[in-house]
């Protein structure tokens, strides 16, 4: 057995945190739509918003291991907050985002007390139940939410007073992309912080955590609240850029779609939600002429294929490939 010099532990940790060139390429590529596909900037802004939402789900699912079928609740709360503010006369976007973050954050914080107490099937059903109850409640409270027809009269003011929302989506995409990138930077920090390590500990072996003195429930409450805030911001972005809010922003469909996107891209890698959102929404746009029934047929097949061949999603498959190439060279 060869005795190697003991690698400097600090260097190892630093190496984990360093930006990879693939990440730099990815973010540069997000600027491409401005140049290559200027007709698709509206779609691009929707993708950026959905990617942000998917990333927030990754924080609780991929990192803390909480399977939630009701995460759209916070997206919807953020959406309605921003929408209601605008519909009642205050359409300033940045304060709208802040308000959405606050309402979604408080809702997430309160719910987190329930979420942290349960596991397995009970937890999945509770997240589902809360989501469903919220949709029905929003439907019933149509005086507030506009019910089935959605909120009317949303008008988003120019950002910082200068940048008007144009028909081509130039402003919308810039706005959404900047928000996505800024929050991504924060999320990346979180992943590489002691808290991120604790989350991975919970995911890897939740039973061991109390045995090393970790207050697991507190950790779960914190990450759940953070994920709710991010989802709320994403919802607000959607409300502001599309100037519509409807029940489907809260609904099960949205929760399920984002889960599919995250699985497609690969959980627990932070970029999985982003990749998954891009692939899913581009595909959906390309096949938008198709009868929705057939869309779900192909998604069903895709899910089966992904689970059977690429359980860690696209990114998982890519890293396996990279490892194999690395072994050969």
């Amino acid at each position, binding site marked *: 057995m060869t005795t190697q010099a003991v690698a400097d532990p600090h260097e190892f940790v630093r190496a984990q945190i360093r930006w990879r060139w693939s990440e730099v390429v990815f973010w540069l590529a997000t600027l491409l739509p401005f140049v290559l596909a200027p007709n698709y900037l509206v779609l691009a802004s929707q993708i950026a918003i959905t990617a942000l939402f998917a990333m927030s789900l990754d924080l609780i699912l991929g990192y803390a291991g909480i399977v939630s079928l009701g995460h759209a609740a916070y997206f919807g709360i953020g959406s309605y907050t921003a929408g209601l503010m605008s519909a009642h006369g205050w359409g300033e976007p940045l304060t709208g985002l802040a308000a959405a973050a606050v309402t979604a954050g408080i809702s997430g914080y309160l719910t987190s007390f329930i979420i942290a107490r349960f596991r397995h099937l009970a937890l999945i059903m509770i997240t589902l139940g809360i989501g*469903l*109850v919220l949709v029905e409640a929003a439907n019933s409270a149509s005086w507030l939410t506009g019910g089935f027809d959605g909120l009317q009269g949303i008008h988003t003011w120019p950002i910082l007073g200068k940048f008007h929302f144009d028909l081509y989506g130039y402003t919308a995409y810039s706005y959404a992309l900047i928000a996505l990138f800024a929050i991504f930077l924060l999320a990346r920090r979180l992943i590489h912080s002691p808290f991120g390590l604790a989350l991975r500990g919970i995911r890897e072996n939740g039973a061991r955590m109390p045995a090393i003195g970790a207050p697991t429930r507190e950790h779960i409450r914190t990450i759940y609240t953070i994920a709710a805030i991010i989802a709320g911001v994403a919802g607000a972005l959607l409300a502001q850029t599309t100037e519509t809010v409807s029940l489907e922003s809260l609904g099960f469909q949205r929760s399920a779609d984002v889960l599919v996107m995250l699985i497609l891209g690969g959980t627990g890698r932070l970029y999985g939600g982003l990749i998954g959102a891009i692939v899913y929404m581009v595909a959906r746009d390309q096949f938008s002429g198709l009868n929705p029934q*057939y869309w779900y047929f192909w998604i069903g097949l895709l899910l089966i294929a992904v689970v059977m061949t690429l*359980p860690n999603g696209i990114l998982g498959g890519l890293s396996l490939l990279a490892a194999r190439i690395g072994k050969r060279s």
Partner: protein
Amino acid sequence: MPPVFGVIFDGAAYGMLLFLMSVGLSVTLGMMNFVNLAHCSFAMLGGYVTVTLMNALGWPFLATLPAAFIAAAAASVILERIFFRRFYHASDLEQCLLTIGIVFVSIAAAAYIYGTDQQPVQLPPYLRGSVHVLGLDLAVYRMFLIAIAMLITVLLVVTVETTRFGAQVRAAVNNQRMARGLGIDVDRLFATTFALGSGLAGLGGALAIQMVGLDPSFALTFLIYVLIVVSVGGLGSIAGSFAAAMLLGVSDIAGKYYVPAIGAFLIYLVMLALLMWRPTGIFGRR
């Protein structure tokens, strides 16, 4: 008689239906911890088998019921062999996704073959209408439904409590590793139980047409209710499924009747309350 008894009667009928559709999932979940979200696709299959046999081939309604059971059971055996078998030790999430994928495909297939409208079914004359009993108008079909479900419940309980097969099922649900250690072929037991449970779901689907209608989204809309019954009742517990199904059936009907404003989501509130009180289900293992 005050209308509350009518509500209880309707609730019981709905509950029985939920029970038939849920008991299979509860037992297989409890035995193998395999999250089969495609369970209601088997129910839907049973429904469409009944529709096809009656409308296209002119079979009498009662004769289609065993056919629905067998078709669903057979389909489950095929799917179990091809797909499910490899995922018994996979994570919950992977099992969910695999079976949801199957649900999506089944919904699309049903829409393609049958279209998206509700399927009409002509009940035989002796099952139509209602009977006047003690001041209440009780629908004959619902009485029939309750009767069949009770019969099946009794059969299930007798099988589980008195036969060797039932004892093996109880052992495997209780402690799979130990059951294997005792020489019980748990894999074959599971395949059999899975087929039975799916068959029951198919039967439930056939019986449900008259009560709640049948269209391709059935596989998803009912899944939610079935999951509620299973999680509230406790995994692997027939008694739990029965109790939960009745509770939810009656709450749902009562809610829609007495408090229509929140009736639609009373069932979710009841589920949330029950799950928070007993996370592993009313009869679940602590």
